């Protein structure tokens, strides 16, 4: 169990070293990432410029969802964010090389695209979170602190599972980059807002099929001590880690199935 982590650290270390080879580009990338996600947050503020509440949610509460989703998204992108470059590997056949090495392909893909610049978005999310927590009167207790701590790793795993399933499509479409983006960036967008503002079918979709509601919405209800506007079972608010585990299973199975349909490229 420890050994793969050590190998992962070496793979990632190698990439950080190569990113530092282009220092100016690295600094600009990171700054760009920070600014883009800041503009993203402005969109939330613009929305609230025209209304004071979104359903039962105040601007600060939505900002809390936004911050948690951003941090989780950025960390997922940092830790397992291979999905930008992955369809290219399928298309040009360089995925072959991963298959002749004695490691799981998913592990190698995860270790093959570690971009430090993605920290930019996480930093921005953390700043928003700091502000929100200091200005919201959250009734902190052991349970809430624990939830806050468990929430981020669960969210990372849920995001990662959803992305993995989305990426599997590249094995068939060969160039499914844009479709996969619907799962990644689209998923981040959906997780930022309280699901009770969406229509019923989308809500069900997010709660039971692509479980993005477990990234922020359900745990946030508990932390912010809000009654669920949808009246769903309270148990769901504590289910994120379980959903994450389930996601790992589904993602892993989908991946295995997809790799067997890999067609490689000529030459």
């Amino acid at each position, binding site marked *: 169990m420890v*050994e793969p982590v050590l*190998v992962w650290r070496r793979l990632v270390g*190698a990439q950080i070293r190569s990113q530092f080879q282009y220092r100016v580009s690295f600094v600009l990338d990171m700054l760009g990432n920070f600014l883009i996600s800041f503009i993203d947050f402005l969109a939330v503020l613009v929305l609230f410029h025209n209304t004071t509440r979104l359903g039962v949610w105040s601007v600060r509460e939505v900002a809390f969802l936004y911050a948690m989703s951003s941090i989780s998204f950025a960390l997922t992108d940092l830790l397992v964010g291979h999905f930008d470059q992955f369809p290219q590997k399928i298309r040009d056949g360089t995925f*072959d090389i991963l298959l002749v*090495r*004695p*490691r799981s392909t998913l592990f190698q893909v995860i270790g093959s695209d570690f971009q430090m610049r993605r920290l930019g978005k996480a930093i921005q999310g953390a700043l928003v979170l700091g502000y929100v927590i200091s200005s919201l009167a959250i009734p902190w207790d052991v349970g809430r602190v624990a939830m806050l701590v468990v929430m981020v790793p669960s969210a990372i795993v849920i995001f990662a599972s959803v992305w993995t399933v989305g990426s599997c499509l590249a094995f068939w479409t060969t160039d499914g980059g844009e479709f996969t983006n619907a799962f990644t960036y689209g998923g981040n967008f959906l997780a930022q807002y309280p699901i009770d503002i969406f229509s019923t079918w989308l809500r069900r979709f997010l709660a039971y099929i692509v479980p993005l509601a477990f990234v922020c919405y359900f745990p946030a209800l508990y932390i912010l001590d809000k009654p669920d506007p949808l009246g769903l079972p309270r148990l769901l608010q504590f289910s994120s880690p379980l959903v994450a585990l389930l996601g790992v299973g589904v993602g892993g199975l989908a991946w295995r199935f997809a790799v067997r*349909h890999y067609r*490689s490229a*000529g030459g």
Partner: protein
Amino acid sequence: MIEVERLSKQFVVRRGRFRRERVVVDAVNEISFRVERGELLGYLGPNGAGKSTTIKMLTGILVPSGGRVSVAGLDPSKRRIELAKRIGAMFGQRIQLWWDLPLIDSFELLRHIYKVPADRYRQSLARFREVLDLDSFLHTPVRQLSLGQRIRGELTASMLHEPELLFLDEPTIGLDVVAKQRVRDFLIEINRERGVTVLLTTHDLGDIERLCKRLLVIDHGSLIWDGGIDELKERYGAERMLIVDLEQPVPPLQIEGAVVEKVDGPRQWLRFRGPAADLTARVASSARLVDLQIAEPDIEEIVRRIYSVPGT
């Protein structure tokens, strides 16, 4: 080492712009062969004949559509990870080294990916540094290496974990004569000294002649030759070309046992069969000879001849 029985791979290709029609293409069609431990074997065929597809099924990259494969006693697509520890692979066109890092860093990473013990790694690396002359560019980022240097790096990378079996897909493609020779010397060394079984695909008959005793030829997904290189040439490559440079231009020579194919000033091309010595003597007696060379047929030519000879 390798057992292949009625191995097939079909691809479904969709054609047409609007009304797409499904077409099943047989990339590899029921081929069978065996490779013993310690062989150095050439796998030849024109572009698109199914060479790479076969290698990909042997290494566990592609799942076969039919038939049976066993490599080092394992089913490649089912026990890919176990097999990967025991085989090395180099695909001429696919870079396995880390592009932005110094060559030595890639070796270090591979050492950990393959879990090679530190002392074994040091020994192997020292050996490869010497044989492949890596020292001058060991600390250069891969992106700055010349093709020849990179291929030497790739060869080292595919051998660091001391595999029993090495697959090489077009290892000498694009290399100059010196670099080609270095790669060939390396392959002979690992085959003889370490007993590594080597299967290489190539376009280059020169590779085959200098390296392999046995040869498989594939075309349109079917195996059309499995045997020794000398037998193949005897049967299909018997006709060679004698190129002679004469002292002065003369009309096409009338020599018994040879046909003049082409004349260009003092140079003439003669197609012939059998030993070259007698023929050369006959040419020398009928014209003043300055220089001569003998050209062997290339793979495309041999494949064409295999088809054109009836009864095979």
